[in-house]
């Protein structure tokens, strides 16, 4: 009795192969179309290529198993694996809306950098909220010293008087300004950001023109920017994109001295080209 060439296909193995190839295809599509930028930091992109290749290799290695006999088949695990693929295709990758994140109250890093600096005259009166954001800010500070020489730019600015912040230097500048607010009093500043104010405890005429900063993935996004004083702030719509220009001064926020933009002009602006800014590249 001969076994015929056509054998029953093993469903489990078939689904495994389909899932693996789907993930490989999904990653390649997201990388080539640029959609991946909404999710991950650019330095992760090579790793995604590696993952896609690995999925494809694994799928090929399973091909032989299609002929195996099979008695039981459980579909539920494969449904679970398929869910992320569907979600990636079906739902548009919106920018992470900071107001909808539970953490947004503590995501502000533009302001509390002074918390960890202990001066002899000031006893450390760190409130609970600022200590947590201060500690997470410590990570940012360490990073800035390692990767960023703003050095020559600073000299230039101090001569020319205007700080132009954009997607490529906003992180460095904000950290520099937070670290030395007194140094830049009187200098002009201009940049584009979206209106961020709810739940931050700003006074009525203040808001933060912010950009979203991503550490390694969309889940860890923080808002970065410089506090701006603007009489018509209450009329500004949350999340609207604006260009802000003004003169730097200092003010107090949650017990610390922070830079603030005074005499500001706020005009509506187009959305910034880059969805996210990055502290590292």
């Amino acid at each position, binding site marked *: 009795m001969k076994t015929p060439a056509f054998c*029953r296909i093993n469903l489990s193995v078939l689904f495994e192969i389909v899932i693996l190839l789907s*993930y490989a295809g999904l990653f390649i599509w997201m990388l080539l179309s640029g959609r991946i930028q909404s999710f991950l930091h650019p330095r992760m992109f090579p790793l*995604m290529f*590696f993952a896609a290749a690995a999925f494809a290799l694994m799928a090929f290695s399973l091909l032989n198993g299609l002929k195996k006999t099979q008695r039981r088949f459980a579909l539920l695990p494969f449904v679970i694996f398929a869910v*992320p693929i569907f979600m990636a295709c079906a739902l548009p990758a919106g920018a992470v809306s900071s107001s*909808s994140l*539970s953490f947004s109250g503590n995501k502000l890093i533009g302001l509390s950098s002074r918390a960890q600096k202990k001066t002899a005259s000031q006893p450390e009166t760190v409130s609970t909220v600022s200590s*947590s954001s201060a500690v997470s800010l410590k990570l940012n500070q360490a990073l800035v010293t390692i990767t960023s020489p703003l050095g020559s730019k600073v000299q230039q600015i101090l001569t020319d008087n205007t700080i132009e912040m954009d997607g490529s230097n906003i992180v460095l500048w904000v950290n520099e300004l937070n670290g030395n607010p007194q140094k830049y009093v009187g200098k002009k500043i201009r940049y584009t950001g979206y209106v961020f104010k709810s739940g931050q405890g700003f006074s009525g005429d203040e808001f933060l023109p912010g950009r979203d900063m991503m550490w390694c*993935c969309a889940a860890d996004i923080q808002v970065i920017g410089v506090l701006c004083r603007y009489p018509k702030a209450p009329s500004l719509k949350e999340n609207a994109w604006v260009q802000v220009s003004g003169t730097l001064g200092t003010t107090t926020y949650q017990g610390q001295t922070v830079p603030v933009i005074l005499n500001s002009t706020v005009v509506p602006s187009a959305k910034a080209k880059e969805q996210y800014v990055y502290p*590292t590249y």
Partner: protein
Amino acid sequence: MKTQIDIVTGLLGSGKTHLINRLAAFGAAVSGTVVLQCEQGLTDLQISESVIHTGRKRDETTCQAVKRIIRDSSPKRILIEHSGMEPITSLIEQLQTKELRGCCKIRRIFFLASCKTLPDEYKCFPELFNEQIKQSDVVVLTGTDSCNRQEIHTARAVLSTCNTQAEFYDAQSEKDFRNLLLQHGKPVEKQKRSDSSFWILLFGGLIFCYLIFEALRSFSPSAIQIPDLQTFNTVFLSILFEAFPFILVGVFVSSLIQILIPARVIERALTRNIFLGFTVALFGGLVFPVCDCATVPVAARLMRKGAPTAVAVTFLLAAPLVNPIVIISTLYAFPGYPVVALCRIATGLLVALLAGISFLWGISKDPSRILSGFDAADCDCEACSGAESAKSFWPKTAAVLRHTANEFFEVGIFLIIGAMISAILQVYLPKPVWTNLGGNPLIAVLAMMGAAFILSICSTSDAFIARTFANSIPIASVMAFMVLGPMLDFKNLMLLSGNFKKRFVARLVATICVISFLVLIIMPHLFFR
């Protein structure tokens, strides 16, 4: 109407004939049952006259006998008494060829085992038993009235390790046996719809909904805006995609070790002297990067080979933390701040060492009081058993890749669920919870330890989830998540219960929790001021 085939298999003396007697009697109201005996049992067949009894002809295979019976008498049901010493997979395959598929269908495979002798029999013929038990739908344990609780427990452990999905029955319990007959005894009148068709329908429904959704969206894109859902989607997928490469590397390396490297090297190093043992246990994970999923069976195997309990416990806890892939993923998750990785390793090693040392006392010398009596430490998946015979490069590579794929599907589920829970917590938990959490360090550490236990994410990628907590909880407290996660979580606990006795597991869990809490409220603050 296809002939239904029930196969009853098991070793001599396991009670097959007895079961067949009962099965045949139960269904005797329906005529047209044939019993095909492939093995002459110890008990005599006692069936009614309406049931035909036959055996294999000379030089006839079981499959040929089945074909002959169907051709000659077109029975409604064939009960096959199959010899436990013959492999069963080829029989199943033969019965499922195109030729036979049209006229018969395998309905149930029963595996019988005698409680007293099963563990020893398994040790003698592991592949045979693995294969047969894996293919079975129903597993029946016989002779339990002459066994004590420990032997019953051991036998059940053997069976459930080979096959987690089969239904289990104890033949001595009359109630159990009656249930068995009710569920599986009667030949069904109609071909029942299989269970998986429900899921396929659900799946199809989801696809249908998705298509409708896409159609609506193309008509009026702005109408279908659900910002919170989009945020959740983005957060969830970003955590997942970021973790995938690291999990893949972790699973791949674990498979490499499983297939290519014998554990003898570690075993020898661990058993020589206690100080060397602790050192190897602490740093062995550097050279043998095993995912935390793999350390439990490895630790169990080490203990079985004679490693002191204390040393094995230290290895169990330390290996996932000094895993180079884990270290790299921590560096990636906290870029520019390598002290996070350093703190994680130092704290973790301290906890592992202290926990291990605590097991130098109060531990019985007799390993059977610690380990559940079954050697579950060898991976019995097809990739491994095939790989042993493969000697050359390509087959071994293929085996490693296959094993990687299998392991990926096993652990990937936990990653997806963990990422989903983490994303839900991020997006939907009210703000005050996180603010208050960040405030009190003791509560924060406890909360992070609890989160680490619930989110059973592989140690190669939980640094990314920790990163998302670090936005609002001080890094010193988030360290609790990163140190406890690889040591103890829901998934680990299940693995531990499968390999060790409950008392030992309870002591281990308590030790880990207490020691790690004490270390975690002190040590990270030395690194982060």
